C-alpha cells in the first residue's frame, strides 16, 4: 500500500517537474518569438530590452528559485495567464472542464452498464456470446475519433435535429430548464455514442472474464445444489461477486477515456479540455497547454489510485482465498 502511495506522489512529481522544465528545454525562446514578425530576423530588440523582459517574467533568477516560485503560485491557484483567451488559465479550465466531465462520466457509466449487461446476456446464450465477443474484439481496436467522424458525416450531417458541433445552440434563449437540458443532451449524444461504442468492449471483456471466473467457484455449485433459481444465482452470486474487477476497471479506464474524449471533442468541436488543448497548440498558448496537462494528469492519476485502493481493500477483506 505504501508503495502505491509513493508511486502516486512520485508520478505526480515527475509530471509536475517535467511540466516545469519542458518550456525551458524547448529550442528557441519566447522573447525572440514575441519580438519578431514571424520568420524575420530579430534586430529590433536590444540586450537591455531582453534583460528587462527576462526580469519582468522572473526568468533571470536561478532555476531552483523559479521552480519554487512556480510551486508556490500554483498552490495559490495561480497557473498563469492564457495568452490566447486573455484570461487566467484556471478560469478557462473551470469553464471547459465540466463539459469534458459530462462526456467522460456519461461514457464510462453507460459503457459499464452496457458491458455488464452484454456479459450477462452472453452467460445465458452461448451463441450470442460468440457474436458479441467477435464484435467487441473488432470494435475495441478502432480509435473512437474515427467512429466519431463516421457518425458526424453519416448521422449528424443527414439527420436534421442532430447538431454538427458545439455543446449548446449558440444565442438561443431557452424557455425552460428541460429545453436547455435537451439541447445539451442532443449535442452530447453523438460524441458520447462514439465513445461508448469503443469503451463498452473494455467493460464487456472484464465483466465476462470475471463472471466466468465466479461460475467456476464451488459456492456457485453449492447454490445450484440448494436449488436456488437461475435468476437468484445470477444476480446474488455472479454479479455481486464478479462486479469488483469491473469497478476497478471503471477507474482504470479514465486515462484511455480522457484520451478518446480529447480527440472526439475535436471531431465535434465540443468545447471541453480537448478542444482548448488543440487551440492551445494552434495558437502556441503554452501556458494553457501546461495547465490543461497538469489538471488532466492529476485526474487520471487520482482515478488509478482509487482503483489501487479498491484492489487493496478487496485483497484484505477476502483474505488469501481470493
Amino acid at each position, binding site marked *: 500500500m505504501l508503495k502505491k502511495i509513493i*508511486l*502516486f506522489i*512520485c*508520478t505526480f512529481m*515527475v*509530471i509536475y517537474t*517535467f*511540466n516545469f522544465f*519542458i*518550456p525551458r*528545454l*524547448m*529550442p528557441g525562446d519566447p522573447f525572440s518569438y514575441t519580438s519578431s514578425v514571424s520568420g524575420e530576423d530579430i534586430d529590433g530588440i536590444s540586450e537591455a530590452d531582453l534583460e528587462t523582459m527576462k526580469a519582468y517574467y522572473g526568468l533571470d533568477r536561478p532555476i531552483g528559485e523559479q521552480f519554487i516560485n512556480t510551486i508556490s503560485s500554483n498552490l495559490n491557484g495561480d497557473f498563469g495567464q492564457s495568452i490566447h483567451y486573455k484570461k487566467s488559465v484556471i478560469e478557462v479550465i473551470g469553464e471547459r472542464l465540466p463539459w469534458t466531465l459530462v462526456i467522460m462520466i456519461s461514457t464510462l457509466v453507460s459503457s459499464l452498464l452496457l458491458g455488464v449487461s452484454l456479459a450477462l446476456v452472453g452467460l445465458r446464450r452461448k451463441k450470442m456470446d460468440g457474436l458479441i465477443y467477435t464484435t467487441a*474484439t*473488432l470494435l475495441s*481496436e*478502432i*480509435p473512437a*475519433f*474515427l467512429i466519431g*467522424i*463516421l457518425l*458526424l*458525416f453519416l448521422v449528424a*450531417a443527414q439527420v436534421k435535429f442532430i447538431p*454538427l458541433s458545439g455543446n449548446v445552440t449558440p444565442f438561443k434563449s431557452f424557455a425552460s430548464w428541460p429545453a436547455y437540458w435537451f439541447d445539451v443532451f442532443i449535442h452530447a449524444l453523438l460524441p458520447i455514442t462514439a465513445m461508448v461504442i469503443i469503451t463498452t468492449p473494455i467493460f464487456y471483456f472484464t465483466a465476462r472474464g470475471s463472471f466466468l471466473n465466479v461460475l467456476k467457484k464451488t459456492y456457485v455449485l453449492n447454490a445450484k445444489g440448494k436449488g436456488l433459481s437461475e435468476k437468484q444465482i445470477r444476480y446474488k452470486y455472479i454479479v455481486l461477486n464478479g462486479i469488483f474487477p469491473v469497478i476497478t476497471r471503471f477507474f482504470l479506464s479514465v*486515462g484511455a477515456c*480522457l*484520451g478518446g474524449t*480529447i*480527440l472526439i471533442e*475535436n*471531431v465535434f468541436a465540443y468545447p471541453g479540455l480537448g478542444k482548448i*488543448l*488543440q487551440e*492551445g*497548440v*494552434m495558437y*502556441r498558448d*503554452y501556458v494553457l*497547454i*501546461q495547465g*490543461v*496537462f497538469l489538471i*488532466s*494528469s492529476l485526474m*487520471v*492519476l487520482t482515478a*488509478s489510485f482509487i482503483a489501487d485502493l479498491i484492489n487493496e481493500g478487496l485483497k484484505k477483506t477476502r483474505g488469501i482465498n481470493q
Partner: protein
Amino acid sequence: MKKPAFLFNQRITVLAAVLVILFIIFAYGSLIYPHSWFQPSGGSLEPPSVTHVLGTDDLGIDIFAQLSRGFFTSILIGLMAAAIAFMLGGVLGGLAGYFKGWVDESISFVINLFLAIPQLPIMIVMGAFFGPSIVNVVLIVALFSWAPIAKIVRAKMVERIDSNYIRLAKSYGGGFFYIVKTHLLPDILPVLSVNAIAVIGKAIVQEASLAFLGLSDPLSKSWGLMMNKAINFKGIYFMDAWIWWLLPPLFCLMGTILCIRLISREIENQLIND
C-alpha cells in the same frame, strides 16, 4: 526445428494477405501512378474519374497518390516506433527480471511511472513543445510504448529465472549473456515480438491522432493529416467531397490497424495454446 504453428493459421494468413494486397495497391500508387502526392494535378475537389481514381482535394492534389504516400508514412512510423519500443522494452524488462534486487525495483518503478502517465495529453504537450516532425512523433510514440512490453518481459523472466534448469546453468558457471542467449531468449522472443507487432498498430493510431490534432509533420502526407484537412475544410458538410476525400483515409486507417492488431492477437492466442 519445427515450424511455428501460427504460420498455418488460416485467419492470420487472410489478415496478412489483406496487408500484402494493401501494400501492392499503395506501392502502385506511389511508384507507377502518374500523379504527384504534393503537387496539384487537376481541378479543385474533382470527383473520382478515370484520370483521378479517387478524385482530388481542395488544392487539386490527387487523393489516391496522397493515400499511397500516407500508407508508407504510417507503416514506417509504426515500424520505427515499434523497433525502439522492442529494444527498450526487451532490454529493460529483461534486466529487471534477471537481476532482481535494486535493479528490478528501480526499473519496475520507471515502468509503473510510464504506465501511470496519461498518454495522449503528454504526447500532445511534447509534440507542441518540440515541434511537429516525423522523428519527434516516432520518438514520442516509442517513449510511451515500451513500458507495457517491459512489464510483460519482466514477468516472463521472473517466472523462468527461478526454474531449476536456469539454476543448474548458473551453478555450472554460465554467465549472463550465455544464459540469456541459450535459455531465456527462445522463450521471451515470441512474446516480445507479438507485443512489438501490437505496438506497430498502436503507433499508427497515435500518429494519426496527433496528425488529426495538427501535431504531425505538415509536409509529410499521413492519413491523420488528410482527415484533419478534410474535416477543417469549410463547407465539407454541404458537398459530396467528403465521400472521396475523408472516407478513404478513414477506412484505410481502420483496415490497417485492425489487420495488424488482429494478427498480433491471433499469434498471441496461438502462443498461449501451444
